[in-house]
């Protein structure tokens, strides 16, 4: 999206850059989607859902693709804020957009900072397995707790959530909600792109390449990771709030390992290591799932197919769908490609 600015930079002798092209294509497709689909409201709903889940996928991507934190519990930071929003709507009858969306982000941020502080910070460097397991456990335990807690609807979840309001206007499923989700996704995307291309992002790229060396340089590697993890939790919180308003429903499954796994699959299928990859992955998987849902056998074993896809991607095509189009060099980073004499593109 902000790639529009960068598209012109590629001069002679420099490899042709495809990532901005991909970004523009996705952007155009998104803006056009509600107009093309306007005759079929259920497809607009599907598209909105895709946008919201893309935000979740991007939050996972920040953890995994950009700082190597393997989190199997990203849905926790999606589901808990969604529940908070639903409860605020039910018990306080408050759902104004200026209050609830920031509240969801704050809840996500708080929760993920607590997790980051526990899992990542400390005198001893945690092993990747400890982090993966800690997040998985958190997500699993939360799902179990919520399904046994009557106040939040137990196993049935919370339904008929109060509609999101902006002034007097109430957001229902449809084009308006689509553009709200689109705006959120764009803001998140641009924010993440800015973050990953900044000096901060440069440190992250260094950590990804060689964590030990960065630590010897004096960077507090774990602190950087904790910050990214917390920010990712905040983004997931935003997605969770949008999701609960859009569906009008939130259940224990939305914070469990199931949805967390989906975030992993979206991201890896689309292409880890880029920001646009998760968006493409989410779109591809959700669209396929919608199209194939009519076939009974496929519907029954759809999760199996997803698992096989994940396995194939991990074993044979680690760069995902995007890797088929965009070269490794371009995906890994472009910190060196600065236009001679010009302003550094990143910062």
């Amino acid at each position: 999206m902000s790639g529009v600015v960068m598209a012109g930079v590629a001069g002679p002798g420099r490899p042709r850059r495809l990532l901005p092209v991909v970004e523009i294509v996705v952007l155009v497709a998104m803006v056009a989607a509600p107009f093309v689909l306007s005759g079929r409201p259920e497809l607009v709903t599907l598209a909105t859902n895709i946008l919201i889940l893309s935000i979740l996928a991007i939050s996972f991507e920040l953890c995994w693709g950009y700082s190597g934190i393997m989190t199997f519990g990203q849905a926790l930071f999606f589901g808990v804020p969604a529940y908070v929003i639903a409860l605020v709507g039910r018990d306080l009858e408050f759902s104004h957009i200026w209050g609830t969306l920031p509240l969801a982000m704050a809840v996500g941020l708080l929760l993920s900072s607590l997790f980051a502080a526990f899992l990542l910070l400390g005198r001893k460097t945690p092993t990747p397995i400890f982090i993966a397991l800690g997040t998985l456990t958190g997500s699993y335990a939360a799902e179990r707790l919520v399904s046994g807690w009557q106040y939040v609807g137990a196993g049935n979840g919370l339904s008929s959530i109060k509609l999101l309001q902006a002034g007097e206007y109430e957001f229902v499923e449809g084009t308006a909600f689509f553009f709200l989700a689109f705006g959120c996704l764009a803001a998140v995307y641009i924010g993440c792109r800015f973050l990953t291309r900044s000096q901060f992002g440069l440190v992250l790229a260094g950590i990804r390449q060689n964590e030990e060396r960065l630590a010897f340089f004096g960077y507090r590697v774990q602190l950087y990771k904790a910050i990214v993890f917390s920010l990712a939790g905040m983004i997931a919180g935003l997605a969770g709030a949008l999701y609960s308003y859009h569906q009008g429903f939130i259940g224990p499954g939305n914070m469990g390992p199931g949805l967390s796994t989906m975030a992993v699959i979206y991201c890896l299928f689309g292409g880890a290591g880029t920001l646009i990859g998760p968006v493409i992955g989410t779109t591809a998987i959700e669209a396929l799932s919608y199209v194939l849902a009519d076939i009974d056998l496929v519907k029954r074993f759809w999760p199996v197919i997803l698992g096989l896809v994940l396995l194939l991607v991990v074993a044979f095509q680690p760069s995902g769908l995007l890797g088929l189009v965009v070269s490794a060099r371009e995906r890994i980073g472009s910190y060196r490609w600065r236009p001679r004499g010009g302003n550094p593109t990143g910062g």
Partner: protein
Amino acid sequence: MDTAVKLIFDLLAFTSVMVLIVLGLGVIASMMGIFNFAHGEFVLLGAYTLFLFQENGLPSWMGILAAPIVVALVGLLLERTVIRRFYSAPIIAMLGTFAIGLVIREVVRGLLGGHYKSISEPLEGMFTVAGLSFSVWRSVIIVITLLVIAGSWALLSRTRLGLQVRGALENPGLARACGISTTRLYALTFAFGSALAGLAGALIVPLYQLSADIGTRFLVQAFLSVMLGGVGTFEGPVLGAAAVGGMASGLPWVVLPVLADPLVFVIALAIVKFRPQGFISQGRT
């Protein structure tokens, strides 16, 4: 008095099964350096094998014998085709085995049709010793576990194969230079670990209900046990499993059952956090 005996027996039986699961997980983790996220699903497969045998009217003991064999074969096949690709990259291995687990879980879910199935205890009833009654099946679980532990220990410390395994564990490069095929050992180890998980699944499932999601719970608990006990030792994971298993089956008697599970995780994670090297710090690693 009877309640206390029942509690202790529940605790011991559950702990035994945890020990079996954790032994398999720990063996794979210390040998190949990968954490098998599909291990919970191997437990599920073992349970499902027993279910299939009962469903088709075959005797339960055959199902229990078949479970470890079936799961070992599945494990062997997976190791030969997919998992060996991941040995050089432990983090990718996590993702890969996670994906395998997802596939197995969802296949079983599809086959079960999303229902819960109860499986009858192969040996029902109680027996009475000195005025106290004991559940037969729980006793069988405990005895089998003790036999398996003794057998594994003897295999590791008394046989030629065990020596090779210990050698490969200590220094894989040197072991290979001595003409020990680590590839073969890794395949065997993986199959052995899977077999233990399968056996555990078949033993424990009569006490639970079979559903596709039992794997996740065992996976999380088993991982915590391995990390509690420390990787690379034989005794560590067994101790860890005893601790986690004891907490998991003991806590529901003390606090609300809903809170018990998460509480176990929190306690275990907190211990691991502040003692990452495990109980046995002067282990053989």
